[in-house]
C-alpha cells in the first residue's frame, strides 16, 4: 500500500481503480457569510463561528477568519475542509516566502492573486474548492480588500461580502460606508449587517468574531453574541388578521 496512492490528491490517484473524478462536488460542512470593509486605519472582517451540516447547525466554534503572514487576513465561507486545505497551501507559501529572508513579505495583493489562480485553475479542472474568500490587509500604508469566488471570480472593493451577505449586508454597506470610517463606526456598521444576517440567514449563528488589521498588526476578537429584538406587535398575535395561519 503506497502512501502516494492513498493520500494523493483526489484527481491524481485515488485508492481504487476509478479514474478519480470529473467532479463538482457538494459541500458538507459549510460556513456562511463573511463581511469585510475598509476603514481609516485598515481593514475589518467579520464572520460568525458556525459550521453547518446541511440544515443542522452542527459546529459552533469554527474560526472562519485566519491571519496569513504579517499583512493579511483571510475569511472564508463554504466548505470548511477546503478552507483548511487553502490554509495549508498558504502556510507553505508564507514559509517559502520567509525562507528567502530578504525583508520582503507577501502582502494582501499577492495573497489575493495567488488564491485567484488556485481557485480558477481548480475550476478549470472541474474540481473546485467550494469557498468564497475575503482577503484583506494593509501593507506599506496601502489598504487592500478583495474577494475570490469558487469559480475564480475576483475583485477588490471598499466593502465585500460572501454568500447571503451579498444580498443582505452589501446594500447596508453601500448606503452607510464612507471613506475613513473610525473603528467604532465600522464595527457599528458590521454589527448592523451581522444582525440582519442573524435574523434572516438560517445558517447564521449568534456567535461572531470581528478581525481587524492595520499597519501595526492584526487582532481577532474573542467570540461574542449580539442582542436580538423580537418585541414587534405583529409577533404577539400573528394570526389576528388571518385565522388558520401561523
Amino acid at each position, binding site marked *: 500500500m503506497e502512501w502516494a496512492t*492513498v*493520500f494523493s490528491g483526489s484527481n491524481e490517484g485515488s485508492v481504487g481503480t476509478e479514474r*478519480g473524478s470529473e*467532479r463538482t462536488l457538494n459541500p458538507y460542512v459549510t460556513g456562511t457569510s463573511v463581511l469585510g470593509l475598509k476603514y481609516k486605519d485598515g481593514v475589518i472582517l467579520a464572520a460568525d463561528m458556525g459550521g453547518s451540516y446541511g440544515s443542522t447547525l*452542527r459546529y459552533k466554534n469554527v474560526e472562519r477568519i485566519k491571519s496569513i503572514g504579517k499583512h493579511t487576513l483571510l475569511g472564508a465561507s463554504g466548505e*470548511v475542509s477546503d478552507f483548511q486545505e487553502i490554509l495549508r497551501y498558504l502556510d507553505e507559501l508564507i514559509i517559502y516566502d520567509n525562507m528567502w529572508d530578504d525583508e520582503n513579505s507577501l502582502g494582501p495583493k499577492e495573497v489575493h492573486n495567488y488564491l485567484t489562480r488556485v481557485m480558477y485553475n481548480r475550476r478549470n479542472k472541474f474540481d473546485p474548492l467550494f469557498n468564497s474568500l475575503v482577503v484583506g490587509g494593509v501593507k506599506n500604508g496601502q489598504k487592500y480588500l478583495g474577494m475570490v469566488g469558487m469559480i475564480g471570480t475576483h475583485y477588490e472593493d471598499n466593502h465585500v461580502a460572501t454568500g447571503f451577505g451579498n444580498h443582505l449586508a452589501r446594500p447596508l454597506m453601500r448606503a452607510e460606508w464612507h471613506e475613513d470610517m473610525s473603528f467604532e463606526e465600522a464595527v457599528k456598521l458590521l454589527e448592523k449587517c451581522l444582525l440582519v444576517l442573524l435574523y434572516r440567514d438560517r445558517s447564521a449563528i449568534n456567535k461572531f468574531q470581528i478581525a481587524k488589521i492595520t499597519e501595526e498588526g492584526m487582532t481577532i476578537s474573542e467570540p461574542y453574541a449580539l442582542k436580538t429584538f423580537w418585541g414587534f406587535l405583529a409577533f404577539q398575535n400573528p394570526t389576528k388578521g388571518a385565522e388558520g395561519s401561523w
Partner: protein
Amino acid sequence: MFYLQAADSQILSDYVRYFLNQHTIQLGQPATVKVAANLVRLFSYQNKNMLQTGLIIGGWDKYEGGQIYSVPLGGTVLKQPFTIGVTGLGGEIAIGMMLLRARPSGFRRLQMHGAQEREGRKQTTGRNRKPKKLSHTNEINQLCDKEDKVKEGSGSSYLYGFFDQAWKDGMSKDEAEKLVVKAVSLAIARDGASGGVVRTVTINAEGVTRNFYSGDSLPLWHEELEPRKLLA
C-alpha cells in the same frame, strides 16, 4: 445529506491503523492524537468524492493529554470537548467526551471518554458487530477539529439537543460514562439503525478500558415498557 457508509469507515480505519503503526515504529514512541486525526483527515479529504464516512478520533498522548477530534464528511478537522456520531448501516453511535479535571498541582489531565475505538471507528451499539482488534499503541491518536464533544452517525441527530443540555465541563470519569450510556440509550430509542448493546471505551493516561452494557440494562424512555419474562 449523504448517508454514512459503514464499509467506508472500516476501510479508512484499516488504512489509518496501518500507517499509524508504521509511523509509531519509525517514531519510536506512541504517535500523537493529532497525527492520527491528520491521517484520517488526509484520507477523507483526498478521497472525498468516493467516501461517505465521518469519524471521531479520540485518544491520549503525553504532550496534550486527552483530545477529541471530529472528521465529518468532507474531511474537515475540528477539535472538540465532546462529540457524537453514528455510522450508517451498522447503526452504531459513537460518543466521545473529554473531561477536564484540574489537579492540585495545577497540571491538567485530560481524560477522553467515549464509545469509540482508537482510530475513531464508531463504537458498536448495533447488532451483529464484533469488537475490532486494535493495534498495540498505548495511546490513541486521532485528529479532528478539536471540540469538546463530537457526535457522528445516524442516531446523532437525536443527541444534539440532549448534549446541549446535559454536557458540562469538568465531569468525572464515572459521570461521563453515565452520560454517554444515557445518550446512546436515548438514541437507540429513536434511531432504527441502532439497538442491542452499548459498548464504551475510555482512553486516558492509564490506558484503554472497555465496558459493556446489555440492552436490557439500559434505562427505559417514553412509551417503552418494562420487559417481562416469556410465559414459556
